């Protein structure tokens, strides 16, 4: 299967620049709150659970399992699989499943992060581990 799909470059902003800098090194960052201890994704400066501004970047292991997915059958340049991955660190992440047999995808399946290039920073995707 040839990948001819292109992805939009993320527009970086002051709140999210560290995420995209890490993505250039193919590292997936999440945010964790020092006040309540909860991790979240996508990253915010203020914790969405306790409103503390003491949130810090944390590198995710990049592993998790499929929470849910759906295969878009009629799309250009071809079908794609959209879904959520629940990371080992806790947060669930919206993503696409790539470089795999879509019809073999299952809820609960272990997956790992892979990065795809854009004209800006690379973007995280997931593939079966």
């Amino acid at each position, binding site marked *: 299967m040839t990948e001819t799909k292109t992805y939009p470059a993320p527009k970086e*902003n002051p709140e999210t620049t560290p995420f995209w800098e890490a993505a250039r090194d193919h590292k997936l960052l999440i945010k964790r709150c020092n006040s309540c201890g909860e991790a979240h994704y*996508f990253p915010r400066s203020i914790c969405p659970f306790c409103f503390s501004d003491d949130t810090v970047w944390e590198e995710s292991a990049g592993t998790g399992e499929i929470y849910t*997915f759906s295969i878009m059958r*009629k799309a250009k340049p071809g079908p794609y699989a*959209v879904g959520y991955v629940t*990371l080992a660190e*806790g947060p669930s992440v*919206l993503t696409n499943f790539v470089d795999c047999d879509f019809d073999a995808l299952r*809820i609960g399946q272990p997956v790992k992060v892979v990065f795809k290039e854009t004209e800006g920073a690379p973007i995280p995707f997931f593939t079966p581990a």
Partner: protein
Amino acid sequence: MTIKGKAYIAGIYEHPTRYAPDKSTAQLHAEVAKGALEDAGLRSEDVDGYFCGRDAPGGAWAMVDYLGLKVRHVDSTESGGCSYIMHLGHAAEAIASGKCSVALVTLAGKPRTGDIGTKAVGAEEDFEAAYGATTHNAYAMCAMRHMHDFGTTPEQLAWIKVAASHHAQYNPNARLQDVVTVEEVLASPMISDPLRRMDCCVVTDGGGAIVVTSKEIAQSLNRPLVTLTGHGEAMKGPRGGNRLDLTYSAGAWSGPRAFQEAGVVPQDIKYASIYDSFTITVLMQLEDLGFCEKGQGGKFVSDGNLISGVGKLPFNTDGGGLCNNHPVNRGGMTKIIEAVRQLRGEAHPKVQVPDCDLALVHGTGGLLGLRHGASTAILERTQ
């Protein structure tokens, strides 16, 4: 403080068109406004409150000017397809507090012709845009997880479409008027697993409007009295991805708020308008509203339980979004309109619920698997 019994739906109008390349979107808004005011027996100069969503070209100030209204209250709350159910509640709040006495709510647009606006973008954009989450797959992801957690089946989802089609056969304006079977739904092409084409609503041009008034004004008009006795609204999103659960909707919060205000329980409801953007939307909302236990929605909708005259909970007797009409890809307005028809006894005789004096209207807006709003309204015929 409560809005219970403070506001009445005095006028309703559903545009008969399902394809309108020869009309402007503003024109459709004006036509549904005119229709709803004539239904109520009111004139445009009586309107002192205007409510609209993002489908109104140019927003509230442009529409107020285009329609030539003189208003002292405006509300352009935007929450996708359920905006208009929120407007209904907000109109009641405004009427209860004396901010207006005749509120006009309009919806219209032409997605079938191809005239559709762009969506607003939030902080999540850079972290989600690349993944192609669309209306179809955002609801499909919920269906996939619901099937995983509760054993819900494609056959059970298909029963929802079957029920809608049984009602649509009596609606001469319905986009799809043929009765379909479970087998036909299951034989339709897969769009986004596990949702098939017949699990999806129709795309139509058109619109609708309602006129909400104070009790005094409603009583002065020659129409059956239909009042709002309870209203709730809520929003839900992944919220940082923390303990993600896509098997319930914001209806789990908006529903109980509405029931509590109305002082009734789901078992009291004689007719329900349930937003049916997809079959899974109906199933999850019925659970969230308390018509059955979470996870039992599949059993609840099976064997025609939603068909008027057959099952326990007649729903979307106009054929709903699945068969009748889904103007601007927003189903909230037509849900209110059919509930009022039922309460007035003006539904088609083949689908009219006998002695229908208590109805529920519920809708979602946005993407069920990402971020969405929900709104619930309980309506009662008082005379």
